[in-house]
Every structure is written in C-alpha cells, then in structure tokens.
C-alpha cells in the first residue's frame, strides 16, 4: 500500500517537474533572458492547477494545455506584480522595462496557445479571472476595503480567482473553495513573514490602515503588532479547517495532502518563533 502511494507521489512529482520545464521553455526569450531573471514559477499553484484539472477529469489532450496556460497567466500576473513604484537609476531601468514587457508577453502566449486549440471558453474563463484578480489587487493596494473580513476576502480573490473561474464553470465550487483556501494561507503566511522581517507588506499595510481608521487615534504598529498577527493566524486556522472539511470530497489528493502537512508545520514554526521572540 505504502509502495503504491510512494510510486504515485513519485509520478506526480515527475509530472510537476516536466510541466515546470515546459513553462521555463515557453517563457524563455533570448534577449530578455540576458537582462532579467527567468520568471518565478509558483510551484504550489502549479501543483494546485494540476490537482484541479485532474479532479475535473478534463480530457488529456486539453489537461496539460489548461495547466500551462493558467500558469502562464499566473506568471504574467506575478511578473507585473514585481514592478515597483520607486524611481530607478538609469542602469536598472532596462530591467524594469523588460519586466513589464515580459508579463505582457506571457499573457500573449496564454492567448496564443488557447487560440491554436480553438478553446474560446478557456480564453474567456482566464480573461475573467485576470479581471477579477486585478479588481481585487487595486482594492487591497489602495486600502479600499473597510472591514477586515472584506480585506481578507479581497486578498483571497487576488490569489484564487483564476482557479475559481475554472472550477465554477465545471460546477465544482467545493474544489474552488479548497484551492482558494490553500493559496490564501500561502499568501497570508508570506505577508506575515515579510512583516515580521520588517519588510513592506501589502496586507499588513492595509490592516494597519483599517485599525487607524476604526480607532480614530494614531495607530502605533509596534503596540498592535500582536493583534495584527493574531488576526492573520485566525484566518489561517479557519482556512486550514475549511480545507480539512472539503478535501475528502476530492480525488488525487496525495501530493496535496503532503503539501498541506508541510504548510501546517511552517505555520507552527512561525507561531513558535513569534512566541519565543515575544
């Protein structure tokens, strides 16, 4: 039984790596590769879309195309997300310029691949996902959300809308929820890590702003650090719980469960070190 499970895990890992290699090849452009780094490929999201596509029983001929194009869109969004506001010295300008074009190029590739297989449904589905992601990115970034609940919901959408759109079309909302919770946990943990390291965090900036407005008194981040962390931990725990409630309804969960176990250990570690550091 264990040998079977291991073999299956091994197969899934190999497939994951193969898909990653395809993405690396697709996104390579000779001049861009000389000036900017190869794009970041979020392996968790790659695993997730693989898991979704397998659960939706999409025909093999389309399955890999769906995984590749969804990831190209994700890579495009992540690439554009890395464009900062700060003015750059002349020698670094070219890098920013190419980063912008790279993101657009990856979007173009997603469209091209799906156009070649005449899949107008998926073109529309991913386009709707991109729109939704950007709607929520603007809301989170511009501090437009007025409650913690709506802020967290928006943050979740920035990470999950692409997956939501696909699963909803196939009437598998529970699969979408599962995916949304997973990417949300990942994002909150990342924001928390940034915050604790004293680096800028979009989530914690927005949370601080919310508290400042609610309390109508100057908000000192230092004093309230613990309450902000507490809010985030609460949302993470809730999401873990929701995942546990719905995971049994899904198939092909082996790799997914492994990932979950690892994420939980990360969360525990973070809590531990936060408590120890006071």
């Amino acid at each position: 039984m264990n040998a079977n499970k291991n073999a299956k895990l091994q197969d899934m890992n190999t497939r994951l790596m193969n898909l990653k290699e395809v993405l690396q090849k697709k996104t390579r452009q000779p001049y861009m590769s000389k000036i900017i780094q190869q794009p970041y490929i979020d392996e968790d999201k790659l695993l997730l879309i693989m898991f979704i596509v397998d659960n939706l029983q999409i025909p093999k001929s389309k399955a890999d195309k769906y995984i590749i194009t969804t990831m190209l869109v994700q890579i495009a969004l992540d690439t554009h997300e890395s464009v900062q506001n700060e003015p750059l010295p002349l020698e670094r300008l070219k890098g920013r310029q190419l980063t912008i074009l790279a993101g657009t190029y990856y979007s173009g590739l997603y469209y091209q691949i799906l156009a070649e297989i005449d899949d107008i449904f998926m073109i529309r589905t991913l386009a709707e996902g991109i729109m939704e992601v950007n709607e929520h990115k603007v809301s989170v970034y511009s501090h437009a959300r007025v409650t913690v609940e709506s802020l967290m919901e928006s943050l979740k959408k920035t990470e999950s809308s692409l997956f939501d759109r696909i699963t909803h079309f196939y009437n598998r909302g529970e699969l979408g929820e599962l995916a949304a919770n997973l990417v949300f946990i990942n994002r909150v943990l990342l924001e928390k890590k940034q915050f604790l390291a004293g680096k800028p965090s979009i989530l914690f900036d927005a949370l601080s702003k919310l508290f400042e407005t609610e309390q109508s008194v100057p908000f000192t981040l230092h004093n309230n650090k613990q309450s902000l962390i507490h809010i985030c931990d609460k949302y993470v725990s809730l999401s873990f719980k929701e995942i546990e409630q719905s995971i049994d309804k899904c198939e092909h969960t082996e790799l997914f469960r492994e990932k979950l176990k690892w994420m939980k250990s990360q969360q525990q570690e973070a809590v531990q070190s936060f408590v120890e550091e006071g």
Partner: protein
Amino acid sequence: MKLKMIYSFLNADINIIEKELEDTIQAESPLLHEASLSLLQAGGKRLRPVFVLLGGKFGNYDINNIKNVAVSLELIHMASLVHDDVIDDADLRRGQPTIKSRWDNRIAMYTGDYIFARALDVLSNINKPIAHQILAHTLVELCLGEIEQIEDKFQFNQNLRKYLRRIRRKTAILIAASCQLGAIAADVEDELHKKLYFIGYYIGMSYQIIDDVLDFVGTEKELGKPAGGDLKQGNITLPVLLAMETPAIKDNLVKITDHSTEAEIERALELIKNSDAIDRSLTLSELYLEKALKLIAELPQNRAKNLLRDIAKTIGKRKF
C-alpha cells in the same frame, strides 16, 4: 481634411463603440474605473475601430457583432499605452497626465492588465477561431517588437531592415489585424480579408514612419508630449538612420547615449531636421501608401473603399 471628418459617415457606429468602450471598462473598483475612464476620455483617433468597421463593410455588416472586434482592439491599444507610459516613465499622454503619474506604477500595471483582459473577454463573443489566432499572433508579435525596440536602443549600427521589422511589429500589424478581423467578423471570404490585412499593414507602416518624422518636426502642443523624445530615449527611427548616411552627421549622432546632455540632444535634433532625412523618410512613407492605394483600387466598389482611400491619403499628409 481631418481624419474624423473623413469617416463621419461612420459616426453613428463610432458613437456606439464609444458607448460600448465606456460600458466595458465599468470596473467594480472605483479607482480602477476612474483610471480606465481617464484614459478613455483622453481621446485618441480611434483608428483601429475605424479600420475594423471599414473591414466589416465588405461583408455582412452587423454593428452588434462587429463592435466586439472594434472595442477589443481599441482596448488592447489602450492597455499597451498604459504599460508603455510606465516603460517610458512618461508623465503626459495626449496632453493629459498618464495613469502612472496620476496614481503610480502599480495602479498603471493593474489597470493595463485589467483592460487587456477585458479586451480578450469582449473578443470571446466572436466565435471564430481564426479571429483569435490572428489576434493572438498579433499580440505576441507586438510585444516582441517592443522588446526589440529596447534591445536596439542607442544601437546606431542597425540597418533599415531592422527598423522596418520593428515598426511592422510595433504598429503596422495591429492596424492590419484591425482591417482583417473586421472583415472576418463580417464573414468576408478569405482572399478579400487577406487583401484588407495588407492594406492595413501598408497604411500602418506609412503611419508609423510619419509618427517618427513628427517626433522631430512636431511641436509639444501638436504631439501632446515633448518633441524629440525618440532620440532622447535612444529609439533609432528612420530619420536618424537616413541622416546617418551623411558621415559628418553620423559622427555626431553615434556619440548620443542615455547620458547625453540636453544640449547635445538638441544639436543632434537640429542636424537631423536640417538634413534631407525628413523628406526622404516621407518619401518612403509615400511608397507604402502607394502600395496600400494600389490594393484599395482592387477592392469591390462601395463607400468603405472610398473611405479607406481617403484615410490613406490623409495619413500621408497628417501633421500630428
């Protein structure tokens, strides 16, 4: 005559497209909506929608169907402008503050991505795979053209062929695709929509060459942005390439870098303006227009044919 006056017989349909553009960019986020709307309201020639409509006039013209193509192509053009302003660090576009200067780079990136996705969403109403294949190919080429433009900055040793390939990708193929996609949406037969593609392509080449000339001879007021911007940014356009055929001018131009002073740039601009490069550039633009006109003459007789011819001729004489 102004372009807008020439295509006034399309006014009713252009108005439908304007309205549709406004409806399409209705975002839930007020900020996103405001940013998109500010770009839309800054105006523009709406050249791409006009070419889409004209292409459609050669087939079963139904504005309710064709508007999807027209709106989509204008949105793609708009999205690329928003991102281009971040690339060029531009504060003004059509005389108005750019999204990146009014808000910041991040908002500009989100807005551009949102508008781009809207464009694909709208075009997905056209259930013709070939339309999507053409547009997808166009978008990838467009992007490669921009990447190439960055690669070629301050590369004074490039040749004419490279310049032409760059403007083909950067401008001409989107106008070409506009003509062709309008026709495809209207069920025009293959041979005719391919001809319309080339008409758009030649007009686009001519249009971009004139744009490159105007960057030297236009005023800031006419251009809606500072003149001479191309050379300052290291974009080697046709007037520069032709001016460099004179060794004395070449010696001056090849010294231009991104560290050059305003005075050095000004001197280089004057050298180009006073050379025969401007006239020779316009001659090449004229040659492309002639090619377009020759193909237009082969089109079936209708009002759109006359309009295409008039637009082509006006583009050749435009001042801004």
